[in-house]
Structure formats: structure tokens, C-alpha cells
């Protein structure tokens, strides 16, 4: 949408949000959530630095991991009090 300095806004920015940055490809390990162990405390959601854990406002459903944006930092697995998130290696076949 921009071609040169005359088209750019003064501030280095884009009209999009960070959702366009698909950072899931950076992952070497992947968080996998066990719904049986999860108590829906949503601590993983609070700690996720990439907002890659999707929760529902009613706090009824187990969280869903957004693999398009999750970078595999494993903070969620570290913080989960129920050990409901484990990190597994990404395989090339996947």
C-alpha cells in the first residue's frame, strides 16, 4: 500500500495490527494443553507475552492456543499450576 516516503505516515507504523505478523513459524517447541488437567484458571493467558492464548469471557471453556502467533516461549507451561501444558518438539513433517 506504500510505494515511497511521500506515501508513508510520519510515524513508522502500519494500518494493520500485530495480528498480521504470523510468528508461529519461529517455534521449535510447541505448547500442548491437556483439557483433562486444566482447571480454567487462565494463568497461562495472563502470562502469555504474545496474547496467543484465547479464552472466553465466561471462563467456562479451556483456553485455546493460537498456533499462528505462539512463538513457543514455554512461559505458559512454566506458569501452569496444574502442569496441564507440556512442550513438545516441532517436527519438520508437521
Amino acid at each position, binding site marked *: 500500500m506504500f510505494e515511497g*516516503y511521500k506515501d508513508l*505516515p*510520519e*510515524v*513508522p*507504523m502500519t494500518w494493520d*495490527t500485530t495480528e498480521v*505478523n504470523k510468528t508461529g513459524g519461529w517455534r521449535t517447541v510447541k505448547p500442548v494443553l491437556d483439557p483433562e488437567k486444566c482447571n480454567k484458571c487462565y494463568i497461562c493467558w495472563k502470562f502469555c507475552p504474545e496474547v496467543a492464548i484465547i479464552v472466553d469471557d465466561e471462563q467456562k471453556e479451556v483456553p485455546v492456543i493460537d498456533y499462528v502467533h505462539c512463538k513457543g516461549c514455554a512461559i505458559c507451561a512454566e506458569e501452569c499450576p496444574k502442569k496441564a501444558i507440556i512442550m513438545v518438539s516441532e517436527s519438520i513433517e508437521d
Partner: protein
Amino acid sequence: MLAKKVITGNYASSYGAKLARVQVIAAYPITPQTSVVEKIADFVADGEMETQYVKVESEHSAMAACITASQTGARTFTATSAHGLTLMHEMLIWASGARTPVVMTNVNRAMAPPWSVWADHLDSVAQRDTGWIQYYCESVQEVLDTIITAYKVSEDREVLLPALLTLDAFYLSHTYETVDMPDQDKVDEFLPPFDPPYKLDVDDPHLFGSLSFPHQFYMEWRYQIKEAMGRARDKILQVDKEYEKIFGRSHGGLLDLYRCDDAEVVLVAAGTMASTIREVVDQYRNQGYKIGLARLRVFRPFPAQEMRELAKKVDVIGVLDRSYSFGYGGAFFAETGGSLYNIPEKPVLKNYVVGIGGRDVTPKTVEGIFNNAISLQEKGLDKEIEWIELKEGGK
């Protein structure tokens, strides 16, 4: 009604921030700046100023706080000195890159080691490539007026760049002078609230400052800063005139010329030593010498056009640097020389390195420099870069 106050250069910064209705202050103490933010703390405690007063854990954080607050649309201010300013270096580049018009007072202080808290321009001169507008103040009144005009210049959509005001340690930061306090209503009229074109806003999210690949627009955004700095030159002159019309004072635009009209020998200098030079110019003028002063009030953007105009008319330009760049002379000298290289008729250009670490630049010091500079009219350049009143020892 015109109110007068007897205040220091530091307090003039505080009053300037108050009159500009700054909304976010980041405060971190460092000698000789501390009384700037102390006075603002008094204003807040006494209910005279409505602002978010943020006490931060370092100067790096102070600048980060100002940048982000500015991105939400708040007018922001902080103050620092020497090691505080240099610790901010990374964030200074961020501030201009993000196009946030933060205004900051820097009390020019020497860099350690050895420790020195006295006047020296290295701290701010070393920030010359960060994309900040830089004003070097000479008087307490100028500090107050420049805080107000700096916001007007920096917040203009044609500019959107941060600005640094510098005050020589103690000579200006702690010296009391009588100051005309502008009327708040008139300042409000002159300086409307800050309204940036793009904001950090949770209801209208965008990507700010994210990755730009080499084939994308990083280079073009740097070019935009260069263009904005060029427009800042005209904006400073325009705002200076507007301010003069309303408040009756101008501080000389970018290059403040004193008795330069028919001058043959001119000294270029920044900061408080300009006042001493004015005195010596008057004395020598009474004796018939055709000399003048070109005070470098604004170092960024560099007044290349004004320098060229001046250089066409004079035989000798002596550039006084209160800091040294360990490359080629002082930075003021190197840039003055750079700006003059492509004009056909060039004056003799000499660098006088003076007042390092706060050593007093007395009328006698200035007389010595003028005597040497005048002698160059006949004999030509003797020594390109000279350290003045350097103690040699070695006996």
C-alpha cells in the same frame, strides 16, 4: 499584567513546563539538573500544576516513559544531565524515530572520568546524530521562552521531532536572573493542546515501530526524519517571530548574530560564554576593531545557510568548542567547516577548544582568542585547532 520573578535557569525550565501545561513528567535526579524536577514536584504538591509525575528508576526509563506517554497524545517533559543523557542514548533515537515531540532540559555537564559536574558540552554534542532538535541557551529568560516555543515547533505536524534545551551547568542552571513571566492565558492561546496525527489507542490499534525489512521502508522513514529536520529550520524562525509578536522577545532564531553587519572577524560560540563574548565585542568595537559574535543557538538543525551567509562577509571565523570530538576538532568547528567547504570564497577557519570541564571562560580568555583571530587576517592560519589556556607543565 506582566509578572517578574527572580529565578534560576533550572527553575525557568520548571516554570516553562508548567506554563506549557505538560501532562506527563518523568523525574530522575542528577546534579546539576535535580532542582528542575524538584520544583515541578513542588508545583504538583501545592496543587499549582496538574500533571502525571512519574518517578522512574533510571534516565533510560525516564525517556521510555516520555516516549510512550507522548504516543498516547500527552505533552511530556523530563530533565537530565551528562551521564543521565548518555544513558538515554538508545531511547533518544527511539523518540525521534517514533516522531514523539518530547521536550527535555539537559544541563550541560562534563562526562567522567575524572568526575566533574561542571559546564562542558560533550554530553549533548555527543547526541547530535539522534534526530533531536538542540537549543543552546544563554540566559534564564531564554530557557523559559524556549521551553514554550520548543513545544510549538516540535508538535507541529510538519516537524514532529523531540527537542533538547541545554543550559551550562551552574553558569545558567543555578544563576538567578530576573525573568518576565508570560501570562498563562496568552501561553494557552499560543500553544494549544498537543494533538498527534496517530496515537496509541486501544480502540484503534495499529502496529507502531515494528519490523521493517530492507526492501520495505526503513530507509524512507529515516529520510522523512531528515526532511522534518529541514522543515524544523523554517519552523523555528517562524515560531520565534510569532512569539516575539505576542510576548515581545526573540532569542535570535538559529544563529544569533551580534554586531556582525560589518564584522571582519567573528567568533562562533554556544551557551553562556556568548554573554562574555558580547562584552568583549563591545570593548573591542569601542577601540575600532570590526568584530562580532555568531551565537550558535540551534545546533540541530545545523544553521548551514546562515553560516554560509556570514562566511561570505568575513575574513576570519573562530569556532569555540566547549567539548572535543576525538576525530577532527570540536563538533561545532567540524560542522561549520563542512557547511562552508562548497562555497567559493572561504574565510580563515580556526577552532578554539575552551572551557573544558567547566574551566572559566573569562573576558581575558576571550580577549586572547580575539587577538589571535584578528592576527590571522594578516598572517593567515597559524594552527587549525588550538586548546586555549591549557596548562602545559613538563618543566
